[in-house]
């Protein structure tokens, strides 16, 4: 069982993480680097002169972008282990796990780990004003746990009590609210911030759906290999 989890998680996480990294480098990184020109004060929004929206943000940075690839692959491997634990429990309770329905698992993972916390704490472009990072992390984790439990109840609950609890779990973090900054002081143009948030969500969704698909695929494959000798 453990080797099945470990192997599936490593393969699915590394593959999805690599694709996530490539998508991030192409679609998100230029927006982030553009924002950093404002964060560092190199460009000034609403200064004396209008600033061109087209800036040279530099090309591929081997050290910086290489680290991003490594950390994206690590992050998605972490996600993969958590996703596979959910898949394994669901399978034991009678659900079928495949590469195809893994897409839905991936979408649910995206909502849990990326979209639910991001609904109130939007993906931050560099330079935005934000509350204390520790407080935001606590809210982030609480929201992820609540959203994950809520989606599980939506998918596997069998009565209105479960579905009602799911709605409460999904809504509560946003009704209660996240730690917010006292004042807005972001120097980055709103156009860049908005593009950054939607790109981050889009890349996250694509990568998570692939992660779910890969996790389902490897879980099945490893199950056929290992389960043939010893039932998981």
């Amino acid at each position, binding site marked *: *069982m*453990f080797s099945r*989890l*470990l192997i599936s*998680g490593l393969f699915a996480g590394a593959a999805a993480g690599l694709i996530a*990294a490539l998508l*991030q480098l192409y679609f*998100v*990184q230029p927006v*982030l680097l553009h924002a950093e020109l404002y964060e560092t004060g190199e460009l000034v929004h609403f200064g004396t002169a209008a600033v061109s929206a087209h800036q040279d943000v530099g090309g591929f940075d081997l050290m*910086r*972008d290489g*680290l*991003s690839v*490594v*950390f*994206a692959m*690590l*992050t998605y*491997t*972490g*996600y*993969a*282990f*958590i996703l*596979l*634990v959910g898949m*394994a*429990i*669901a399978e*034991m*309770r*009678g*659900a*079928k796990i495949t590469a195809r*329905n893994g897409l839905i698992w991936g979408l649910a993972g995206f909502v849990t*780990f*990326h979209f639910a*916390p*991001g609904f109130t*704490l939007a*993906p*931050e*472009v*560099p330079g935005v004003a*934000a509350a204390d*990072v520790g407080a*935001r*992390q606590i809210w*982030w984790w609480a929201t992820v746990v609540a959203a994950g439990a809520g989606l599980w109840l939506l*998918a*596997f609950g069998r009565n209105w009590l479960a579905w009602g609890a799911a709605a409460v779990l999904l809504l509560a973090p946003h009704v209660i609210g996240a730690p917010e900054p006292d004042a807005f002081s972001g120097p980055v143009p709103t156009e860049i911030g908005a593009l*950054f948030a939607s790109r*981050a*969500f889009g*890349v*996250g969704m694509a990568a998570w759906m692939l992660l779910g698909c890969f996790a389902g695929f490897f879980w099945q494959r490893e199950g056929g290999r290992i389960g043939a000798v010893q039932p*998981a």
Partner: protein
Amino acid sequence: MTTQTNTASLSLSSILPLAFAAVLGFAIITITGHVQAQGLHDAAHDVRHATGFPCH
């Protein structure tokens, strides 16, 4: 999800690997996304922003 008849309950032998995999997953996410040590923060900076982790 389709419900089948072979609904085996969670056995003790599967709880341990599941718990370990879950802890491993959460530990990795904590390290890549949350620990604020300077070197780690700098290395993971772009991924943290793009993945929606609270950064800075």
